[in-house]
């Protein structure tokens, strides 16, 4: 960036510090300090009011034995898995279709991306109604086509609650689709022309040219999916409240409930620390896989 023979005037340390100050202050106040605070307070019992009491690893023992936390943990892992192995392939599929520029492809791209600019709160509301037991779209549709026996209380049936809260995320493929489309557009057209001459089918081209060349975008998508899953709050909060019997609980919602509903601030932060650790492990995993595929 800077040239080998730096011309005058160079920046003084003071000028640099002055320019960096606002950014450093924001990050220090809202990310670094909270991180330290959480790591420390996770070992205390604290009701928010009054002094905190050091209790060692008790919070983590409590978490381990708490059925709600276990549900939250496994459900969050499910969010990651479904995000990686169902949602992401769907994003790739649509990107592969759109990259051949069928008629109205821009229109489709705009439509598919739309949910990404709308708040998850509103989308959760929308899907709450779609799955609503008495006035919901799903049950009414099943009634219309004569499948009354399939009708159920989707959001509060333990077999379907988690998947119902996840469905909007799975089918809103817009973000990943654009990510992959952007990466595909950097692939030189000659590669496809050559393959065409060799008589490779469209599927074959996608499989052996496109997919290997978009693995960086796939890795990036994996990073986003992990981040999204660990932050997942709105869908279960609004659609099911984490119920029934915690079957759709997530880590973020658990952190919120322990703080706001149960007033167990120390426990809430311990759950936060577990979430941060899980995030770190998953991110390292993604990077390790990426490095191996790039070799």
């Amino acid at each position: 960036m800077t040239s080998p023979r730096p011309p005058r005037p160079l920046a003084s340390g003071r000028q640099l510090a002055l320019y960096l100050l606002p950014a450093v202050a924001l990050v220090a106040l809202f990310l670094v300090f909270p991180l330290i605070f959480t790591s420390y307070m996770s070992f205390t019992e604290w009701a928010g009011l009054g002094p905190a009491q050091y209790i060692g690893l008790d919070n983590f023992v409590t978490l381990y034995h708490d059925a709600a936390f276990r549900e939250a943990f496994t459900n969050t892992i499910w969010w990651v898995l479904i995000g990686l192995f169902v949602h992401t392939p769907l994003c790739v599929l649509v990107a592969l279709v759109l990259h051949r520029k069928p008629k109205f492809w821009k229109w489709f791209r705009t439509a598919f991306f739309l949910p990404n600019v709308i708040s998850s709160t509103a989308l959760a509301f929308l899907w709450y109604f779609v799955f609503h037991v008495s006035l919901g779209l799903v049950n009414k549709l099943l009634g219309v086509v004569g499948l009354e026996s399939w009708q159920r209380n989707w959001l509060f049936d333990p077999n379907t609650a988690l998947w119902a809260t996840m469905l909007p995320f799975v089918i809103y493929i817009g973000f990943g689709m654009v990510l992959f489309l952007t990466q595909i557009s950097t692939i030189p057209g000659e590669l496809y022309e050559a393959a065409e001459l060799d008589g490779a089918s469209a599927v074959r081209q996608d499989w052996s040219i496109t997919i290997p060349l978009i693995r960086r975008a796939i890795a990036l998508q994996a990073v986003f999916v992990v981040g999204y899953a660990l932050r997942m709050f709105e869908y279960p909060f609004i659609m099911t409240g984490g119920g029934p019997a915690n079957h759709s609980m997530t880590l973020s919602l658990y952190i919120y409930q322990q703080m706001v509903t149960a007033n167990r601030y120390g426990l809430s932060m311990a759950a936060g620390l577990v979430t941060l650790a899980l995030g770190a492990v998953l991110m390292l995993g993604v990077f390790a896989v990426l490095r191996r595929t790039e070799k």
Partner: protein
Amino acid sequence: MPRSVRWPVLGIFSVLTIVPFLWLLMSSLKTSEEIFADPFGLPGSFSLDNFTGAWEAHPLGRFLLNSVVVAVVATVLIIAASLLAAYALMYRFRISKAVLAFLVFGLLLPVNALLVPIFYVINDLGLYNSVWGVALTYAGIFFPTGFLIIKGYMDTTPEEILEAARMDGASFHRIFRSVVAPLTMPGVVTAAIFLLITTWNELLFATVLTQDEQAQTVQVGVRFFLTTYAANYPQAFAATVMSIAPTIVVYVLLSNRVIGGMTAGSLK
């Protein structure tokens, strides 16, 4: 993909994406009886009663205004801090790599895990239940993304232009003001779109950091239409429509830029 799957794929995803929205819009124009009796039918008569009812039931106007203030203030703060920091990092100094790492590591943090400490930071600053507290929090937690977008654009500033400015004797500040910042404007716009949409849509921190309509944003407010004691579905539909309308309008007008903006931070 073979042509045979092309239209089925596009058709299925179009239906999945569009139909729920249309259904929401249609339901927001119906009466409660119509919704229960015939969820697919068209509204019996065109009436905006649900919208006026929703507008009167809760201070939606105030919620929308709070959302605008929060989104704009947070965006401006992030952009200002990012421009300054990205410019400083164009100069190489002893700890510049460490500073860069410090500024972007938050990108990989699940920030919801920091709910409790951030509540206390805002509270101790005396900003609990204030739009400024929410805006400042957003500025903090969404800073890394905004910063990366802006830094990505700024780093493409041609070296010759900087060189020429230095030769003319322009100072550190002057190069920033007259050369680097103006040239980074496209990046600023991209970042602004991303940040406005992201901050407009946030729910968790807005819920915890506010307590009444003085500071509650529209995402928090919409929830009041569907609580323990309220089950006025048509009004809830109408309020949802009103809360998403601003972003949809912006999106429809500027879809290419918005799509670029929302994904730019990631591919740079």
